[in-house]
């Protein structure tokens, strides 16, 4: 039976090995922070919009090179371009096609009569024939001007204004053959480059970042006060990869080294080291395989979090060897059988706790939960199925383990004395005050682990360029393209007054580039009437018979627009058909003050098919909601665990239970005392603590007075502590908070558990 299990497990391991080879060949690792964010099950179109807007940037690296004056800025830009050009293997300049503009003008020319700005529409509606005629004459007789087209195509000179309004969607302007903008005390040149490296690989080195940094130092030496601001997905991806690989090796190898050292100290034999190593290796491999099979892409943060598994999965191996030490090889089977109930119970509580992390609808969190649960189970199975067969030969008790096993008798034990009651009361006050000072925080930023300088650059760039916000926008929905465009127009009418009041800088809407057919008809009629009057006035004044040009017979349709050269500016906002309905996104620029968001939200009210989307608020709300839900889950979990323990240990169950409760409370109190915020991830750490902290109590109750159980608990505690302690070094605030909660909780539980052990006389059955 035991052998059959061992062979079965070997087959599973073999399959996992095969999968691992193929996995690492074409590693599908995800660095995108968005992938960690919760899916919105009720509104897949909101997700589609968010992802579309995020994908837009893709491989682009956008740089602003600035200096005190325009001449210096141009010099600095040349220096940057030269430096970037030297990294031709990773970066190439994004092609600025000068003919694109001519193509767009030619494309739109037949539709010129139906492209009007809101103010032109107003003016044409109320202008008198005299005013129209006068304007046409003035523009006709003006000494020189940059017309886009012949006079008879645009007798009132309306078209340049329309283009001007489109150009106002960004603050960059062509100047001396470059893209220029002015702001924050500097003149800037805009440069756009593209990363040539498509898929990133761990340990590939941050080559794009290095090239940008070279350009930065070149700019700073080229001109005094020179400055380079850069942003782009490739930079984030590289930073994330570099950080993740550093963290994975620190946490993974750090805890591995500690585990192996502890095993060596305790058993002074190579066999335990090898076998514990094998159980850890298989745990990690199985974890990765299961995760990769269940999810399309494995996220980097999963691997970072997963490296803490090393410190947890070794528990079962420790327990086996601690119990087996000093016993004859023939007793291996009975030893394992006597350990099995406690180990299984411990595994179940831990796995349940890990899986409870996946209750929150955060895909990243679910990956971490699956990864850890699978890894833990695999390590457990390896110990149970393989260790008795592989662990042949003697394993004498070492002096270290003997001394340590005996130390349990000297550990303080809580009894009903005055001193202990006073200590308890003092502790209760400290905990109460700490809990009172605890401040919750559900800020989205806890998920963002990018280096602060990257974030600062991104913000500055967005501010200078007036880029639209990717997190707050209006989602427009309709039965048809026409309805979507018409609804956009209705929304814009309500937004225009807010733009005038400078609540925000402006918007970008598809309907500005492609008005609805109804709008096109209306505007074409309006301009036809006004321009006929203007042409008549010019004819009367000049004594000639000029005629207004003819325009396209049919309206500009979405399909024709999307196939045309002008669509690239706006394509990512046109979501097209999702399900049975059409969607588009209306983006907002210059949204710097969170206080105005409620006013924007109010705009959508009463407008059919318009939804205000605030991803930041939505996710923060979700983080808060799940922080409370998980908090409730912890309370319920402790009651469930107490009932489970009572079923096995009866009236002594509290001895395994209370240390974890106290550890949780002390951890929370410490967070309160040091002013660390209570986040969803802190609470998740406590959930896991519930599952693992109870294990120690279970083992001590399961094997009362047995020094080897204490030895195993101590070893397990130290290594778990170390791996989660190392997680507290992570650059991702969420993981750091998680690690810190685990670290503090583990330490207190580890110290407290033996204090609540059974009195010695009861211990000997």
């Amino acid at each position, binding site marked *: 039976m035991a052998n059959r299990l061992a062979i079965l497990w070997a087959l599973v391991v073999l399959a996992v090995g095969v999968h691992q080879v193929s996995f690492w060949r074409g590693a599908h690792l995800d660095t995108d922070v968005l992938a960690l964010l919760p899916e919105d099950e009720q509104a897949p179109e909101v997700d589609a919009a968010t992802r579309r807007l995020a994908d837009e940037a893709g491989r682009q690296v*956008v740089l602003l090179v600035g200096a005190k004056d325009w001449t210096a800025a141009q010099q600095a830009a040349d220096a940057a371009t030269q430096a970037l050009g030297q990294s031709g293997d990773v970066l190439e300049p994004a092609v*600025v096609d*000068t003919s*694109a*503009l*001519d193509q*767009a*003008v030619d494309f739109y020319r037949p539709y010129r009569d139906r492209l009007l700005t809101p103010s032109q529409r107003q003016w044409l509606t109320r202008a*008198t024939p*005299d*005013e*129209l*005629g*006068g*304007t046409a*004459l*003035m*523009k*006709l*007789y*003006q*000494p*020189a*001007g*940059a*017309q*886009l*087209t*012949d*006079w*008879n195509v645009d007798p009132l000179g309306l078209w*340049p204004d329309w*283009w*001007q309004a*489109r*150009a106002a*969607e*960004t603050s*960059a*302007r*062509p*100047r*001396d*053959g*470059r*893209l*220029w903008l002015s702001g924050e005390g500097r003149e800037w040149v*805009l440069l*756009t480059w593209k990363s040539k490296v498509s898929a990133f690989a761990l340990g590939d080195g941050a080559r794009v970042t290095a090239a940008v940094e070279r350009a930065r130092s070149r700019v700073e030496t080229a001109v005094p006060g020179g400055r380079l601001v850069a942003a782009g997905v490739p930079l984030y991806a590289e930073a994330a990869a570099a950080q993740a690989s550093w963290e994975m090796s620190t946490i993974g190898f750090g805890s591995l080294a500690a585990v192996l050292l502890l095993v060596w100290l305790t058993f002074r034999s190579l066999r335990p080291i090898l076998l514990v190593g094998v159980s850890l290796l298989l745990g990690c491999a199985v974890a990765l395989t299961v995760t990769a099979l269940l999810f399309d892409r494995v996220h980097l943060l999963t691997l970072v979090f997963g490296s803490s598994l090393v410190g947890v999965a070794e528990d079962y191996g420790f327990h086996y060897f601690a119990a087996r030490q000093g016993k004859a090889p023939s007793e291996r089977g009975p030893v394992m059988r006597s350990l099995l109930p406690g180990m299984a119970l411990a595994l179940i509580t831990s796995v349940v706790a890990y899986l409870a992390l996946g209750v929150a609808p955060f895909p990243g969190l679910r990956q971490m939960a699956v990864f850890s649960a699978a890894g833990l189970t695999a390590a457990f199975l390896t110990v149970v199925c393989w260790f008795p067969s592989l662990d042949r030969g003697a394993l004498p008790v070492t002096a270290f383990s003997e001394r340590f096993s005996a130390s349990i008798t000297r550990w303080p034990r809580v009894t009903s004395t005055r001193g202990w009651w006073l200590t308890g009361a003092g502790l209760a006050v400290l905990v109460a005050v700490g809990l009172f000072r605890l401040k919750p925080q559900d800020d989205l930023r806890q998920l963002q682990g990018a280096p602060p300088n990257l974030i600062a650059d991104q913000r500055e760039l967005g501010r200078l*360029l007036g880029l639209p916000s990717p997190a707050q926008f209006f989602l427009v929905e309709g039965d048809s393209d026409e309805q979507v465009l018409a609804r956009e127009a209705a929304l814009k009418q309500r937004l225009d007054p807010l733009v005038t009041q400078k609540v925000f800088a402006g918007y970008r809407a598809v309907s500005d580039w492609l008005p609805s057919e109804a709008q096109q008809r209306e505007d074409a009629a309006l301009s036809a009437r006004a321009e006929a009057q203007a042409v008549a006035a010019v004819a009367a*004044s*000049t004594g*000639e018979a*000029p*005629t207004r040009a003819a325009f396209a017979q049919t309206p500009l349709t979405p399909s024709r627009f999307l196939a045309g050269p002008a669509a*690239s*500016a706006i394509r990512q906002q046109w979501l097209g058909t999702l399900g049975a309905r059409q969607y588009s996104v209306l983006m907002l620029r210059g949204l710097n003050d969170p206080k105005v968001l409620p006013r924007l939200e109010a705009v959508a009210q009463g407008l059919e098919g318009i939804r205000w989307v605030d991803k930041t608020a939505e996710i923060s709300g979700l983080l808060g909601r799940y922080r409370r839900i998980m908090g409730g889950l912890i309370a319920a979990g402790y009651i469930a665990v107490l009932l489970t323990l009572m079923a096995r240990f009866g009236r002594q169950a509290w001895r395994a239970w209370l240390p974890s409760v106290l550890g949780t409370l002390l951890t929370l109190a410490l967070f309160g005392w040091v002013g660390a915020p209570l986040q969803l991830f802190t609470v998740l750490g406590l959930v896991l603590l519930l599952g693992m902290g109870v294990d120690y109590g279970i083992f001590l109750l399961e094997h009362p007075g047995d020094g080897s159980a204490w030895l195993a608990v101590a070893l397990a505690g130290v290594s778990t502590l170390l791996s989660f302690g190392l997680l507290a070094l992570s650059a991702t605030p969420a993981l750091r908070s998680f690690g810190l909660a685990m670290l503090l909780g583990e330490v207190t539980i580890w110290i407290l558990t033996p204090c609540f052990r059974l009195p010695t006389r009861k211990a000997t059955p």
Partner: protein
Amino acid sequence: MKPLVLVACLLMGLSAHAADLVKDVRARLVDAPLVRGKFEQKKTVAGFKKPLVSKGDFLLARDQGVLWNTRTPFASTLTLTRKSLSAEQGAGGAAYHLDSTKEPALAAMNELLFALLAGDVATLQQRFKVEGALVGPTGWKLELTPTDAGLARVFKHIRMEGDGYVRQVHLEETRGDSSVILFDALAQTPPPDATEAGRLGK
């Protein structure tokens, strides 16, 4: 971020042939902070059989701007400053105003017009290939060809003639329209009156 400003593509190019010609022409031009005079403009526009002729007077104040007052065939004023371009027609109430501080393309267009009227060859040289010759003891002739694609989109050639002042400017647009502007009765006085100063101060 797309290069959408059409109007905007009229600039750039930094060719600096410090030719002797330029130096000689500059030496022949009067260095005046203010020039007043009359103009006659003949504009040939597609769709019109005869040239469109307009007449009026102008004032060029260095570092301030240009006032361009058309008297016939109808009265209108054009004010060009470093900051804006505005036009008004007396009778019909037609008017428009463009702010050039935020649009370098418009600012560049203004700068070009200044330079043409003032005969500021040094500025023109930054954007055009300058060819030409001295004429007689006091005159000169220049032919300007845009050196960059943006400006070439608008102008094929600009020809200028003059002596102490610019006497004639001939603008040939790429699309076929063209204008000839003749200047006359040029003087350096009187200084701007209150109305003129007010318009220039805008």
